């Protein structure tokens, strides 16, 4: 495993662990998701360069479009929970489930 592969793998796993363990704000979870998407973008771009498949370099662009979708839906959920449940602490969402 080269240092480049190691670093983007580590970045992805760090984002995943940060998303999994002990979130207080919904926004922190969203930021961790964005970090995972960043690691995936770097990974796909470097994959293009390492395999020397030129046509594959459109894939990071498409991933970026999908990550824009993810970010916008996450922010919309944030706004909706902020309207209905008050402050966006994740612990406050557990006690209000129906």
């Amino acid at each position, binding site marked *: 495993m080269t240092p480049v592969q190691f670093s983007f793998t580590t970045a992805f796993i760090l984002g995943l662990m940060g998303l999994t363990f002990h979130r207080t704000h919904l926004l922190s979870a969203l930021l961790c998701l964005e970090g995972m998407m*960043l690691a995936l973008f*770097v990974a796909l771009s470097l994959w293009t360069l390492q395999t020397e498949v030129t046509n594959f370099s459109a894939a990071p662009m498409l991933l970026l479009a999908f990550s824009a979708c993810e*970010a916008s839906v996450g922010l919309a959920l944030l706004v909706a929970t902020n309207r209905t449940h008050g402050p966006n602490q994740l612990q406050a969402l557990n006690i209000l489930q129906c």
Partner: protein
Amino acid sequence: MVYFAFMLLVGLVLGLVGVACNPAPYFAAFGLVVAAGMGCAVLAVSGAPFLALVLFLIYLGGMLVVFAYSSALAADPFPEGWTEVTVFEQLAFYLLGVVAAGLYFGKHWYTLFVGMVDSCSKFFTIRADMGGVVAMYGSGGFMLVFCAWVLLLTLFVVLELVRGLSRGPLRAV
């Protein structure tokens, strides 16, 4: 250049550590900016300048919205930085994990170079990444249309999510 690239990779991982160790979103956004800048520089030095530019302009530009939200919606009077005890112990935990994994996987790194490839760069006037992205408008046109349709669908999803207190999918119970 190799050491410079290695430093950028360390910066990428450190930025993600700063996001993952659960500080206030105010500071986590800063960690994400650092990680995005370092990732952009990694792409630039490994021979994908167009993708690096796209990452820097579009990703960071789009993330500006998230940063504005994180300073507006999660406005604690005393946001937890990385020096708070609860944050710092997770920071130390993640850093220890990264160093341990690096020691485990990095036994042969001195023979491997950094793994930076500057391929697809010989005898071309257009760099490989730009040529490949151009193919998205030709043979990859279906995926382009599909992406546009997905973005349009997302617009309606967002509009439906933030519709109102009594009509939207998330309601006060």
